[in-house]
């Protein structure tokens, strides 16, 4: 990789140098030019603790390639702007009405005109060539180490790891939602689609976005240089709760990743009989299990319960809750599962501790009970979803999102106890 990045860097810097010299003739404001470079530098430097979706802070190879392309382009654009404004403002000042006679009626100078037409064309060639180069480069996915499927639906992402040798070996499918866990340094290919409308998968610090279109499979490569939690967001307008359709990618070291996988595939542990959680289990079976799958959950006859979200939700899917408490956000990564106190321990963990802390999951002490309770009490009030039974004619009565279930506070207590053990 580094092999092919080096020459491109050279090319871009050459191109910058070139365009700078071209403008010497026209641009009187040398200072202004320097100023713009300084501003740009400030821009880059200033990004230190900026928004988690900052597109100027690549944290992986793919995003880096884009960044290597984009900053020189921004620079060129900035310089062109400075040149144009320099000339324009100079002229505005120089030729203001100071009582001079009516100017000569000059209609044009074809040679100058043609020259000034060619100049931008030349600049653009210098932009176009690396653009196409990067495009081809980014499209090359031969060295994939790991395949992860994502499926967008209103308004959350399902993430599943199909059985494969990649990702360090997956023996049984892992299905989760909202948060994707990957190993640092591996080339992950996200194969995405959608169950309803178009969504767009975007982890800014790892790569550009890719629309996930129903009926098609589109891919997006991810690779993270360092452990960390990388925020993302659905960026194709997908209806009511588009704003609440977020996701995260958690990159961790090899060992942590292996531990994560092992945990995901652990067998179901039924709650201690008679405990609150056990009551929660039966509430869950009666209220939730028709939509939400919990792997290994059995009914009183000892039969495995298979959720049928396809009969209960328009998109045909609901998040798999088997390991809910191993994630630390829920409902389209819109809300925290971790309380304000515990959240920073994971989210602001030093790079080498991210995986470890993340794998600890959500304990009873750390649970953000407020949001989870509110969610269970009345989901559509917490996050706009299309669940009002009187308005579901078009979808044959099926909601888009999780409906209001009229749970009692007791039931909610039980459910929370039960869910806390899903880790």
């Amino acid at each position: 990789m580094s092999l092919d990045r080096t020459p491109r860097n050279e090319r871009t810097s050459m191109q910058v140098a070139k365009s700078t010299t071209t403008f010497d003739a026209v641009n009187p404001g040398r200072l202004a030019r320097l100023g713009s470079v300084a501003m740009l530098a400030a821009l880059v430097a200033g990004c230190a603790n900026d928004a988690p979706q900052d597109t100027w802070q690549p944290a992986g190879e793919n995003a880096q390639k884009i960044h290597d392309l984009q900053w020189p382009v921004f620079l060129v654009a900035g310089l062109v702007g400075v040149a144009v404004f320099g000339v324009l403002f100079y002229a505005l000042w120089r030729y203001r009405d100071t009582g001079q006679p009516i100017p000569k009626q000059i209609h044009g100078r074809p040679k100058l005109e043609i020259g000034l037409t060619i100049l931008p064309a030349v600049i653009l060639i210098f932009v176009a060539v690396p653009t196409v180069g990067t495009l081809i480069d980014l499209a090359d996915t031969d060295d994939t180490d790991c395949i992860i499927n994502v499926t967008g639906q209103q308004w959350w992402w399902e993430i599943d790891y199909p059985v494969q040798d990649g990702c360090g070996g997956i023996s049984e499918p892992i299905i989760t939602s909202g948060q994707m866990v990957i190993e640092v340094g591996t080339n992950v290919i996200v194969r995405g689609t959608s169950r309803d409308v178009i969504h767009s998968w975007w982890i800014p610090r790892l790569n550009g976005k890719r629309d996930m279109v129903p009926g098609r499979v589109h891919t997006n490569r991810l690779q993270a240089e360092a452990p960390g939690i990388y925020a993302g967001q659905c960026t194709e307008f997908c209806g009511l709760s588009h704003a609440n359709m977020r996701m995260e990618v958690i990159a961790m070291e090899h060992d942590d990743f292996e531990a994560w996988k092992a945990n995901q595939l652990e067998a179901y542990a039924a709650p201690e009989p008679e405990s609150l959680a056990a009551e929660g289990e039966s509430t869950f079976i009666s209220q939730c299990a028709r939509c939400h799958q919990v792997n290994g959950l059995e009914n009183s006859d000892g039969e495995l319960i298979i959720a049928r979200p396809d009969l209960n939700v328009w998109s045909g899917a609901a998040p798999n809750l088997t390991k809910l408490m191993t994630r630390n956000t829920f409902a389209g990564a819109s809300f925290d599962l971790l309380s304000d106190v515990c959240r920073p321990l994971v989210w602001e963990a030093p790079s080498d501790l991210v995986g470890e802390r993340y794998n600890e999951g959500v304990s009873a002490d750390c649970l953000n009970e407020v949001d989870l309770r509110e969610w269970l009490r009345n989901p559509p009030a917490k996050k706009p979803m299309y669940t009002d039974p009187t308005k579901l004619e078009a979808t044959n009565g099926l909601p888009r999102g999780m409906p209001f279930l009229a749970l009692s506070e007791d039931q909610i207590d039980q459910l929370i106890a039960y869910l806390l053990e899903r880790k």
Partner: protein
Amino acid sequence: MAIIERPADVPAVVVPTPTASTNFGYFRRPVETTGWKSWAFTVDHKKIGIMYGVAAMFFFLVGGLEAGLIRWQLAQADGTILSADKYNQMFTMHATTMVFLFVMPMAAAFANYFIPLQVGARDVAFPRLNALSLWVFIFGGVFLNTSWFLGGAADGGWFMYAPNSSGIFSPSNGVDFWALGLQITGIASLVGAINLIVTVLNMRAPGMSMMRMPIFTWMAFVVQMLLLFAIPVITVALFLLMFQRSYGATFFSVEAGADPLLWQHLFWIFGHPEVYILVLPSFGIISEVLPVFSRKPLFGYPFVVFSGAAIGFVGWGVWAHHMFASGLGPVSVAVFSVATMAIAVPTGVKIINWTLTVWGGKLWFTTAMLFAIGLIVQFTIGGLSGVTHAVAPSDTQQTDTYYIVAHFHYVIFGGAVLGLFAGFYYWWPKVFGKLLSETLGKWNFWLMIIGMNLTFGPMHILGLQGQPRRMYIWTDYRAGEGFFNLGFWNLIASLGTIVLGVGIFMFLVNVWVTHRPGSTTLAAPEDPWDARSLEWMSTSPPKPHNYDRTPIVHDLDEFFHRKYEDVGEGDDHDYVLRASGAEVIAEEERNADAHIHLPAPSYWPIVLAAALPIMAYGVIYNTLLIVAGAAVAVMAMFGWALEPADAEPSDFDPPPPEPATGTELANV
């Protein structure tokens, strides 16, 4: 079958039988020259232009109100001003209103008013069709906005991507209103386009060659060509959408095997030419304004003309740059990426020529001039960010973020809207005979410039910091803390909107101050700016028949050359004032043509236009209404077709007074 054998060279001349001019049917022609009837049934391109302008201005305020609500909601994290649902309707209708009901019709207002004047014609080629366009647009716009009161407006965003727009995902009638409403306003644009193209091609005064045409007319002409060919594309898309939603077709249903990208292609094949439809009229306007206030001809007129045409042409080959993240495949993406960059070349030609027009001039910074300069600066910023989108890999980091929102508001607001305001100030005395206040004008300008940069400038930062567009809320968790945090810049953007709104409000104040009853503003001189192009060679406001005698055109900048004489020797060109503008106009008046015939007013355009929303409501609510609307339409069409060519005085209701000035009313 009988074969007709007849020598072809026998000039079998048809004696044009003068059609009977007795009134047809029940209705006689309206004739009022004052009162509402004189507006409702007029076919005068100037009155139609003014009505276009007023209606568009109204929709600007509506669209601006919607924008205000959007910004209010987004001023802080987790805003609570609007629900998610209302917010989605808000930005959809904001964009739809601004694009289809403000900028396009406002450009149509200018085109209607000034194309005939600038080419030296008495009216457009088809005056009744012109009235039809106006009313269809107005009824379409009203129809579209009635959705607010009938179960909610469209909520799919202005590009209304499938399948999110289909009945399942958007079950209210909003999208139906949207599709039908745009269908209706599309008819207005298409009819208008045909009309104005014919006017430009075929109605020019003697001597007015294409290359002597004022530049605004040229740009408006290119725009009409774009409309002519772009409207049918969205018509197809809208029909498919309507069949999908109202008649059970599955053009965008993935379950049925449809490809949702079909919609995207159709929309953007229309949509990209559309953005040049928005901006080229303003390019035309400032290409008139800059020379006048630089006291110099437009630099490189043919370059500006041809670059306009080139923009129009190349604009057809770049639509997929809106789909870089859609999964087109690298080959298509590469092609469209490079094609998009190519558009910067002709656009650059314009920027450069404007700059060189100013260069060496004698600059007079009127409000109109300030707006024109503002356009150059603001549009260039937007254009350059456009080029950064054209770089496809970078665009995958930018698309659907506020960085895009910043781009297009800079090109649209900084390009199209500032240009329109330049036009307001420049041509106000021409249209209304009074100058707007320059003092208020400067307030207007500076507040708008500051406001727009405060509003849209921060959006660059917001977008690059990863704030996606079309989100009814943003969250503190993703806001960051540094200098570039979302909270601060969202707030600035929202506060900026207030400044912007106050700036625009200044314009309304200015109009009020100038025209309020008892206003002390004096009538403007005939030629307040020492202007150059033909339209100023008429009185202000122009007489109903525009020119007292049909002008004969010798030069580009005809009016200038009539005022100034070249007294230089050889290559030295020294111009001295030979006659003032008022004198030139007075000279024309002395040589007025007698017996000028003007097109006669007609009821049919407004009746036919009214039929369309009736049919559209029918599609949504009740098939019977479609039939009723169609009946009205057919009746109107027959009435129209049978309206006699020559309108005799007896045709009118009541018969018009004897023409005193030699102006007769006649039909076209």
